[in-house]
């Protein structure tokens, strides 16, 4: 195919979805790592299945996925490894499934994190989404279950959401395959840096806390140069989170800081050994 053809076709939606190759479990030589996070029972596994062509068992009850499932797809010539994380309500708790999700987001450093939210229960779902935005920059919010939301007489303004959260928002109904092409192209845009996110960060914190956080963040960055999400780590340390305290003590954080490869593979291996 000539290059002029390719540019013409590339703008057509049919062409773009045709660019998706479901690779199943063939995860070799991936260019990007994508994490799928979200509350329980919002359809993460359904999104995962429709992207990878795998048939990770889905079920209509919270807590169906308790370990990480991994798969791959290729889109526009780039290979993506995608990790379906257990559903959680927060990133603070200590149960095994929540820890798997949090450790991956923090130490696995995915290139893009897709937060799958239930559009009909937006407020509660945003609690987790905001916590994820505290940890990581490159995020796509997948506003899932739009069909149920419409049936319940609700309308969700995805553009207002995108503006407030500072990340792209894609409405989908994954069970029907609705919105998956848009999700894919947005995901690719974020992964390739065509879209730059400016995620919402908590502002309303007391002055005393702010000073403490700044002091600790400075010290952390001195000890672990290049540490992403140092602010979040500082907050966790102030709360005395045992897992983070351990990561500081053992120097595990330096694995994050010294990371140079863009695909997250090294950090991923560290997690895999730990799990």
């Amino acid at each position, binding site marked *: 195919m000539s290059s002029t053809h390719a540019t013409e076709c590339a703008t057509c939606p049919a062409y773009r979805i045709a660019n998706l190759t479901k690779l199943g479990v063939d995860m070799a030589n991936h260019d990007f790592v994508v994490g799928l996070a979200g509350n329980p029972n919002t359809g993460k596994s359904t999104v995962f299945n429709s992207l990878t062509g795998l*048939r990770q068992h889905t*079920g209509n009850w919270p807590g169906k996925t*308790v*370990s990480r499932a991994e798969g791959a797809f290729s889109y526009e010539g780039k290979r993506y490894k995608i990790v379906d994380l257990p559903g959680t309500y927060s990133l603070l708790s200590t149960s095994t499934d929540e820890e798997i999700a949090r450790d991956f987001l923090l130490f696995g450093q995915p290139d893009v994190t897709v937060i799958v939210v239930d559009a009909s229960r937006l407020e509660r779902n945003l609690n987790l989404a905001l916590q994820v935005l505290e940890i990581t920059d490159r995020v796509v919010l997948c506003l899932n279950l739009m069909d149920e939301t419409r049936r319940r*007489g609700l309308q969700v303004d995805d553009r207002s959401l995108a503006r*407030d959260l500072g990340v792209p928002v894609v409405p989908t109904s994954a069970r029907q395959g609705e919105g998956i092409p848009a999700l894919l192209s947005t995901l690719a845009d974020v992964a390739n840096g065509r879209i730059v996110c400016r995620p919402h960060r908590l502002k309303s914190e007391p002055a005393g806390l702010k000073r403490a956080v700044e002091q600790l963040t400075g010290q952390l960055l001195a000890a672990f140069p290049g540490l992403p999400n140092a602010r979040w780590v500082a907050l966790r340390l102030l709360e005395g989170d045992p897992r983070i305290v351990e990561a500081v003590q053992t*120097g595990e954080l*330096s694995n994050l800081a010294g990371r140079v490869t863009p695909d997250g593979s090294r950090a991923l291996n560290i997690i895999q050994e730990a799990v």
Partner: protein
Amino acid sequence: MSTPSTGQEILNTASKLRWDVGSNIHDSLMEALYADAARIADKAVTRAGEQPRFDLDRTIDRLVTSRWAGFPIMLGLLALVMWLTIAGANVPSSLLASLLLDQVHPALRNVAAVLHFPWWLSGLLIDGMYLAMAWVVSVMLPPMAIFFPLFTLAEDFGYLPRVAFNLDRFFKKAGAHGKQALTMSMGYGCNAAGVVSARVIDSPRERLIAIIPTNFAICNGRWPTQILIATIFIGSLAAPHWAGLVSAAAVVGIVLMGIGFTFLVSWVLSRTWLKGEASAFSLELPPYRPPRILQTIYTSLIDRTLIVLWRAVIFAVPAGAVIWLISNIKVGQPSVAEHLIQWFDPVALFIGLNGVILLAYIIAIPANEIVIPTVLMLTVLNTKMAGLGSGAGVMFELDSIDATANVLRAGGWTVLTGVNLMIFSLLHNPCSTTIYTIYKETRSAKWTTVATLMPVALGILVCFLVAQLWRAL
């Protein structure tokens, strides 16, 4: 790069600063987070017009989780699923058996004869391995092909969390975590999956309490045993048109007994070795979603039925070889199998089982799926039935449930043997995969041993009591 001392310095700073910022930092952070979430969501969501007056989800929930109707609905659904499985599996089962056992098996033997296989080779390959596999397929495939899609449809619809909701207060009384109802439900598919799903429980204490009794949920491998034995021994006690319902009721009875033992064991554990308070949790009742019927049937056939069947076949093939070997290697006049059966018989008969069943359970430790085929083969061998099969260790042609029943009765089986086999199938050690999974999840040899041996001890005890009671009446 960090050195341990800088890490320690950071931690020192953190604990010093912790005094400055006060202890309510967690609360104030969470408040800020919730406030932001509420503000953003409020801006984005609008309610178009009025909420529909009739809320179907609420109405269904009120019914299926109500105090008086919740449990009857649960039992009714379970009985319906069982009945559909029992009634529907009979015909395809005998079709498969007549194809694989009556047609293919003689054909294979002919091929072996033409190729001049030595007797032991054709015996081992065709009478041992092939027949074990054929048996597993014909006994297991039809019930699984009906049961799994039905179970998956209920799951897809959103019924499982309601079951958890209903059972929660019992688990709480037993000192266990309410989410144990979910891990138990998973156990009905596969015990190993049930053990893994206990990860949703936060406290290690409650997780152990959830893992140890997983075995009391009848798994894929044991449903066919329960269904077959219930049909032969319990269903036949009733008039023919009631037989299906009565057998289904017997299986439901065993399921209830398993749930009873789950509560009992959880209760004992939480009051002795694993003392503690039940922790609170929130369970989300997800919206009912219309099941995607075709997709569900497809995935449950491909993913569950065929995978489970494949696993059964993989375990059945070497087991078939073992059965053939112990039936054909002779020590003195009788074979090894006959020695073992005679050796087990006194104890087994005392607890209302027989030596054949105990030996079959030992051979079937790798996979519960092959218990029934093994039992049948060993029974024929031990009773030296004439005209059935064509030599020692052959899993013979039984193309209907009646024929199976005749063999078992000829082997000295009574209704008591049937009842106790159903009980023992519920209460015995988990399969090797589950034992390994328990070890992987608990990292404790002690608790793995408890989870393995406690059900066997219970099984022997209950079978003994039932046998005593039966004989006394």
